[in-house]
């Protein structure tokens, strides 16, 4: 497959991965910020949108806007077809076995909350244990804490080592017959650690516990195959995958989803309503109450087309090169410490400067046109683990280039000059 791609690329006489050509697809990257070219290194927060996605959303509103699944008119048929076609694209993108297992939600956060409330409140009870990890985003901590309060379950946390990797031996020790759910991130947003989720799933299944994977930081950077992972649930957000905000996906194995009650009630999720009893609609509609975010779904479909056309293997290889380059260049700066040094990492470099707060780093870099994230990255327990109040974080996407890392390094020197 890869060889065929290379041959095709050679035939067309262009390199396999041409970052400048890709950058041209993203209109926002032409912008100047504070008089400097925009260097966008905050992709773990959200990604920019290619023209193809903007066009898809525009085309939807210009030619198809209508409500889905209910119209008997031309526009509604078109919108419904596009909406369902996007579901099919998502299914193939993560290799789910059936479209019924793809539920559109607002984002990863809503996906996790859906599972915590619908699955959790039905199947967990007092004394049951839920395992998460010390590296989770708040959105994979708080929904479980809420559930624990509701049903009397207990939260258990897999610790991380000094490199920011999960300690699997401790995880094995935490697993027991009371473990009724495991929820872990695929890739850490704060540190970039790639967790061994396949192994985590297999270990949980040995104890009969279902597993949810928070894939928000994984899907834009690596090929995900939910059947290979064998996870019970997988959640991700569109906006981190070059699609609009407000749209995300919850994958669930159909037998799990069938057994779960609806999360929200309303239109579209019913098959028959009387005041005596309501019959719920089949999957996936049972979990899609109300008029959905059609423009978001259409945009997500276009984003998946865009990224698959480039190829996630090529994206992944490009980002790994950027990561290696940035790690080396930043590590050479005196007084800079990289937080998160796992062997398996995605394109995230989190760092602290001696005596300088991350927020000040962010402000000075911003004036250089460089957008990074400064703060606790919605992962306060991770910050506590490393004894820092906050970090500065540069995170990469397919359109970043090594020159931008040179700008970042120069910017960090400027930070030290201003605050030194």
């Amino acid at each position, binding site marked *: 497959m890869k060889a065929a791609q290379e041959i095709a690329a050679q035939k067309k006489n262009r390199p396999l991965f041409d970052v400048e050509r890709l950058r041209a697809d993203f209109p926002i990257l032409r912008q100047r910020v504070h008089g400097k070219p925009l260097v966008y290194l905050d992709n773990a927060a959200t990604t920019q949108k290619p023209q193809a996605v903007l066009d898809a959303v525009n085309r939807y509103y210009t030619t198809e806007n209508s409500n889905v699944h209910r119209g008997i008119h031309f526009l509604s048929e078109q919108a419904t077809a596009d909406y369902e076609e996007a579901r099919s694209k998502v299914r193939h993108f993560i290799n789910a076995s059936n479209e019924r297992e793809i539920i559109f939600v607002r984002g990863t956060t809503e996906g996790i909350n859906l599972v915590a409330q619908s699955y959790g409140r039905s199947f967990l009870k007092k004394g049951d244990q839920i395992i998460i990890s010390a590296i989770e985003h708040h959105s994979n901590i708080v929904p479980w804490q809420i559930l624990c309060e509701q049903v009397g379950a207990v939260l258990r946390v897999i610790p991380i080592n000094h490199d920011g990797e999960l300690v699997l031996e401790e995880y094995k020790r935490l697993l027991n017959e009371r473990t009724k759910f495991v929820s872990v991130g695929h890739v850490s947003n704060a540190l970039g650690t790639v967790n061994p989720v396949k192994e985590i799933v297999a270990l949980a299944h040995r104890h009969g516990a279902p597993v949810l994977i928070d894939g928000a930081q994984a899907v834009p950077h690596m090929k995900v195959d939910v059947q290979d992972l064998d996870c019970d649930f997988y959640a991700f957000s569109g906006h981190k995958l070059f699609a609009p905000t407000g749209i995300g996906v919850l994958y669930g194995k159909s037998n799990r989803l069938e057994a779960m009650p609806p999360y929200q009630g309303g239109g579209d999720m019913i098959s028959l309503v009387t005041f005596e009893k309501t019959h719920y609609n089949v999957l996936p509609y049972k979990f899609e109450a109300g008029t959905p975010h059609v423009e978001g779904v259409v945009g997500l479909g276009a984003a998946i087309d865009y990224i698959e056309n480039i190829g996630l293997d090529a994206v992944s290889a490009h980002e790994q090169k950027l990561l290696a380059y940035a790690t080396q260049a930043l590590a050479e700066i005196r007084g800079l410490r990289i937080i998160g040094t796992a062997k398996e990492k995605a394109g995230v470099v989190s760092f602290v400067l001696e005596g300088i707060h991350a927020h000040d780093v962010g402000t000075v870099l911003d004036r250089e046109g460089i957008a990074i994230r*400064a703060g606790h990255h919605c992962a306060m327990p991770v910050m506590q683990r490393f004894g820092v*109040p906050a970090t500065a974080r540069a995170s990469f996407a397919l359109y970043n280039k090594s020159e931008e890392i040179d700008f970042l390094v120069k910017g960090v020197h400027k930070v030290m000059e201003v605050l030194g």
Partner: protein
Amino acid sequence: MSELGELYQEVILDHNKSPRNFRRIEDANRTARGNNPLCGDQLTLYVKLENDVIKEIGFQGSGCAISKASASLMTTSVEGKTPAEAEALFEKVHKMLTGEVDPKASQNELGKLSVLGGVCNFPVRVKCASLSWHTLRAALKGEGETSTE
């Protein structure tokens, strides 16, 4: 001076590196904790109020240069003042931070606090600079916790 230079003036960098009154006051009778959830700034303020006068004031915590310098400058400016005087000063400082009044125009009233005038060009940093003042207000009102979010 560039906007960045104005924000990170020498006085601010000095107060950041060696904050004044950076200590816990054991016999404080008013304390409050302030949080800025956006960037994780946290500070605890200790006030010893005697006969309606801020007799002693100190703070501890971690935060960016702006929040730390602002807290340090705040403690040096409200010592010896009544809560009402401190509140009136906060209002003036707040107007300067949000750009409602020109820092140069209020230099006489605000004294060294006017070095924080550069913050008005960085709207996302106003919360950093006002955190300690909000915390002081909470402490004097007897509220234990405040947040700039």
